[in-house]
């Protein structure tokens, strides 16, 4: 391995360029992935932030929560399961005193520690609305409601359908949307079925939300396409590096070096470049999370970054190994006859 290290030391600029390329490619993938996850989070953070559990809609809802109506008899479950709760969501808008309109997802629920409760005429908003100049104490109005809402608090990461959530009281919700039936029931940490209701895991429920699945497929496609392209680029760059060294490898083989030693040399160089580049791009992509504008939907967990890094490392390893097969085919005789290594 000393040879591998010495080569890197002597040809710093060449390896620095390759390392920079790996860094830039992985950074682009991380940032795009962060933006894609951010968009996804921005779409349904309200649901995503709930613990794993089961969502229930009425059987005739046709997999659309907006058409679901759970009548009083089915709500008996709330009495027997103390951590269960019912909730409803409807899209609408709020206006501030300056007549600026903001699209929101009105949300109301039965008593649960997962969602803050409000009184009639009050509203708790997603903190994203702070950027629109809305403050605690502001009076907001809605075309669907005769009175006004007083902003009493903000909560983080409570968005639905790309709109900030507005938590209102059950009575106000009934008055605005003319219904006293709940759309959804939620039971944390269970997979049990309830007769007359259709049950969904969190993942299944998310896929019933209009546009979410299509959006996710597009975003995932972008990220994985980038990963595949990046992997191919890794392979191509390591291949190019190997091609430049065919002569030297041939001479070393003529002298009697083991092919496995040459493979180890190539792998250790690839591993060192990839690990350093991935560490730097991971650090930058995590720092970006804190410096990115508040309004930019960016969400990249360390787990996702590590998973992507692992994919890069594996793809880079495969790419360099495939390109390394030419080492096996190198004819020492040809290298000797080709002049200086």
């Amino acid at each position, binding site marked *: 391995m000393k*040879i591998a290290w*010495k*080569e890197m*030391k*002597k*040809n710093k600029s060449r390896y620095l360029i390759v390392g920079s390329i790996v860094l830039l490619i992985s950074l682009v993938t991380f940032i795009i992935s962060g933006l894609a996850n951010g968009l996804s989070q921005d779409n349904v953070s309200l649901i995503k932030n709930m613990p794993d559990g089961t969502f229930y809609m009425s059987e005739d809802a046709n997999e659309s929560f907006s058409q679901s109506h759970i009548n009083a008899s089915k709500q008996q479950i709330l009495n027997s399961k103390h951590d269960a709760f019912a909730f409803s969501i409807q899209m609408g808008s709020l206006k501030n005193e300056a007549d600026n309109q903001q699209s929101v997802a009105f949300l109301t629920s039965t008593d649960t520690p997962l969602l803050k409760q409000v009184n009639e005429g009050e509203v708790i908003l997603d903190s994203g609305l702070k950027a629109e100049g809305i403050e605690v104490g502001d009076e907001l109005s809605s075309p669907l409601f005769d009175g006004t809402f007083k902003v009493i608090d903000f909560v983080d990461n409570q968005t639905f359908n790309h709109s900030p959530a507005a938590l209102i009281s059950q009575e106000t919700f009934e008055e605005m949307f003319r219904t006293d039936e709940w759309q959804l029931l939620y039971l944390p940490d269970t997979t049990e079925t309830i007769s007359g209701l259709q049950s969904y895991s969190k993942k299944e429920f998310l896929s019933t939300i209009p546009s979410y699945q299509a959006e996710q497929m597009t975003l995932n496609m972008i990220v994985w396409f980038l990963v595949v392209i990046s992997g191919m680029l890794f392979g191509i760059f390591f291949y190019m590096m190997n091609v430049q060294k065919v002569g*030297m490898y041939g*001479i*070393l*083989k*003529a*002298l*009697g*070096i*083991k092919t496995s030693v040459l493979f180890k040399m190539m792998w250790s160089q690839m591993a060192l470049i990839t690990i350093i580049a991935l560490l730097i791009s991971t650090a930058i992509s995590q720092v970006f999370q804190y410096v990115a504008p508040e309004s930019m939907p960016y969400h990249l967990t360390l787990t996702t970054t590590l998973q992507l890094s692992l994919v890069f490392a594996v793809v880079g390893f495969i790419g360099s190994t495939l390109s390394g097969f030419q080492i096996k085919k190198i004819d*020492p*005789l040809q*290298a*000797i006859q080709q*002049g*200086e*290594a």
Partner: protein
Amino acid sequence: MAQLQLEQIRKSFLNGESEEEVLKGVNLSLEKGEVTALIGASGSGKSTLLTIAAGLQPLTSGKVLFENQNLAELRPEQVRKIRARHFGFVFQSSHLVPFLTVEEQLAMMMDIAGMKVSKHEKETQIKNILEQVGMTHRLKAYPPSLSGGEKQRVAVARAIIHNPKVLFADEPTASLDSKRSKDTMALLQGVTKSLGMTTLTVTHDEEMLVYADRIVTMSDGQILESAESAGRFS
């Protein structure tokens, strides 16, 4: 007793659809402590014979006997081990590894040969060999900073650092001027005698034949003449 024995070596290449025989039953015996020079016109088969003797390419038929083993019958890994441990190579171009210093080139060759020596012993051996080739002053130099003659001296040092039994030199003076060519050949002759090796060299330069003990003339894939060199006792 011969250090390396070549018996009935035949080598054919496919040239289009026809088969071309470049070596036609060559017999050659290389003795310990001798420098054997292969000469002949281009295409006579001398370089092919050298590379076959060195286990660098397969032969069509015949035997390459080294220490009672026929290289032609061994697996590639076994041949590689013999090359690494018992053979040394000096090529037409020095073929030094560009990113290793002179000292590191020799240390690498010792590793390739599987020599298990202490760091101190390694350094001592490297210094001794470099002294023999007159290159101790360039211990830390990289190949690009060496002259053609110096590179070839380092290549010779690399070829003998692991005390090989046979040294193969394929036109080692082809890229050097007259003075440096003589120096290199004198060096090869010197180390062959002092280390008790066997050297097989290919050359085009008749002036260099005085450094050989035996001159083997090849023509059309066959040995035309094998004679002791006039310089053998000089």
